[in-house]
């Protein structure tokens, strides 16, 4: 018996929701980035599952490949920015940056 597509989609949904909750509740900048990675992976699970089960076909796999690469690029920049923030503020707490208000 083949695993139904919905199971995979549920895994993707769990990843996505965990990522969203992680982004919403964590204050540590790097923890928020981890949430982003989870969200992107949720989408990737969807894409690969669709590639296997739907007429989307290989397109889904190729999209997920590009997503992996783009996520790496984004993580690199986000980390550089986070480190820069840390150098200026001696903390990585996103809420601790309070110069910009209004």
């Amino acid at each position, binding site marked *: 018996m083949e695993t139904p597509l919905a199971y995979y989609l549920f895994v993707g949904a769990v990843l996505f929701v965990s990522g969203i909750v992680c982004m919403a509740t964590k204050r540590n900048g790097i923890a928020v980035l981890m949430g982003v990675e989870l969200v992107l992976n949720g989408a990737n699970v969807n894409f690969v599952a669709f590639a296997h089960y739907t007429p*989307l076909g290989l397109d889904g796999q190729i999209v997920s490949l590009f997503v992996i690469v783009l996520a790496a690029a984004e993580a690199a920049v986000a980390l550089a920015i986070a480190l820069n923030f840390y150098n200026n503020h001696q903390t990585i707490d996103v809420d601790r940056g309070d110069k910009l208000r209004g």
Partner: protein
Amino acid sequence: MLANTSIPVFEQLFNELTKTLPGDVFAFLPELVLCGTVIALLLGRLLGTDRWIPGHWTALVGTLIAFGFSFNAALGGIELSSVEATAEISRSELFSGLLINDGMTIFFRLFLLLFLVLVIALTVLSGIPDNEDGPDFYTLLLGATIGMMLMVSANHLLILFLAVEMASVPSYVLVGFLKGRRASSEAALKYVVYGAGAAGVMLYGTSLVAGLLGTAEIDQIAGKLSELTLTGATLRTILLGVMMILVGLAFKLSLVPFHFWCPDAFEGAPAEVGGFLSVASKGAAFALLIRVAGQLAGPAAVPPEIPVPGLEGLAISLAIGLGLVGAASSTFGNLAAYSQTNIKRLLAYSTIAHAGYMLLGVSAMILARHAGDTDLARDCVSGVLFYLTVYLFMNLGAFAIVALVRNQIYSEEIADYKGLAKQAPLLCVAMAVCLFSLVGLPPLGGFVAKFFVLAPVWKAGDIHPAMWLLVGVALLNTVFSLFYYLRILVAMFIDDRPTGQPVAKPDSVDKLYVALVSIPILLLGASPLIGKLSQAAEDAARDLFL
């Protein structure tokens, strides 16, 4: 046997590739020139030639060449259209349907490249990247622009995500470009955190849409939608996917409730970067939104008498939803701008408000297209394009003046602008032009632009009466926005300059630049140029609904 099968296969592959590739590459030339410029900038740094040829010259020359190429392409389009005005022209697919090359692509390419030239010129004048950091700055600027140019021509959900990422990630760095300043790094962190989250949500929505429709090509969405029976879970899934995609785009457009990054990012970023993001990023995002949203309204070919089950609800709820978001954005932007003391922050809120106005046009477009009124839909799009063009000049003008004044008085607080008119009259007059145009007072470009956007929205009220309400809200907002813009002008023109404040002595080149940017605002308010531009915008919108 292998020899028999595999050699023709390679030949076929080669033929396949060479058949369309040269044409595609030629149409893609402006982007390629920008890519080449990025590499030239890096090579210049590697070989040390950037000491003699500063980065901004390389970037400027590259952008001008790219501009020339796309201008050439645009001329070709115009010539064609004058010959056979009715035929569908210049809509072609590039790279096996990944990109689309139509009037709107050409229009936005010109728009972005013109803007890039102006921004580079501004950075040369204001000197925000010094010679040391110039190559990095322009690499990022050009990289982001390449992403935006892909955004305007995207025809595939992968390109959609790729282009948004390409436009966003360099922007994150640009916002934090003044890396030693606390505010700058804070702005960049907030921007990147929220931006990455929004991109992730958008990707998830993309996956749902692609999976449900079984295709990732944007121009096939409408057709596939009409094949589905949009009921129950299928409709909910597609709505969820579309909403998530729109979240990503709304983030780029800084629409309420995804606007919170915008004031922080703009205040922390250098004014030049703020100007770049507020215009270029918004323009590209609007192009993408128009393309995607147009498809979501269902196929234009199906007459409205033959309803596709469920599509009705999808299109109308989408249109009304976008309209409400637009109205909320402009209201919120204007209200929040009222209490600002920092001019960049104020302009950021004004940006939010303006995105709201333009969004009304998009929502009316969806409605009109769904009702089968393609002419009205075209008018809506061309109105948005016109607005964006005027917005380019007035917003860039405002940010440029902020940047140039900052170099003189080392402040971006409105309180420090007091009495500036006596020291730098030309700058202040130009600022007045920009701000009045942003309000939308006649006879400036902003007025005409607002008219072009809101008139079709009003007309769309015949299809759904909510549009009338939205126009009413927009007009009310316009009146209201006058007051906070006036605060700046009051400070500049009426208040006296306190003693001991730094004196502003702008260079003549600065004045020339400011004049150059603000004169089009006047021309677009009262001159034959209006007709020219609106014609170009209509041309651009025409290919969209065939």
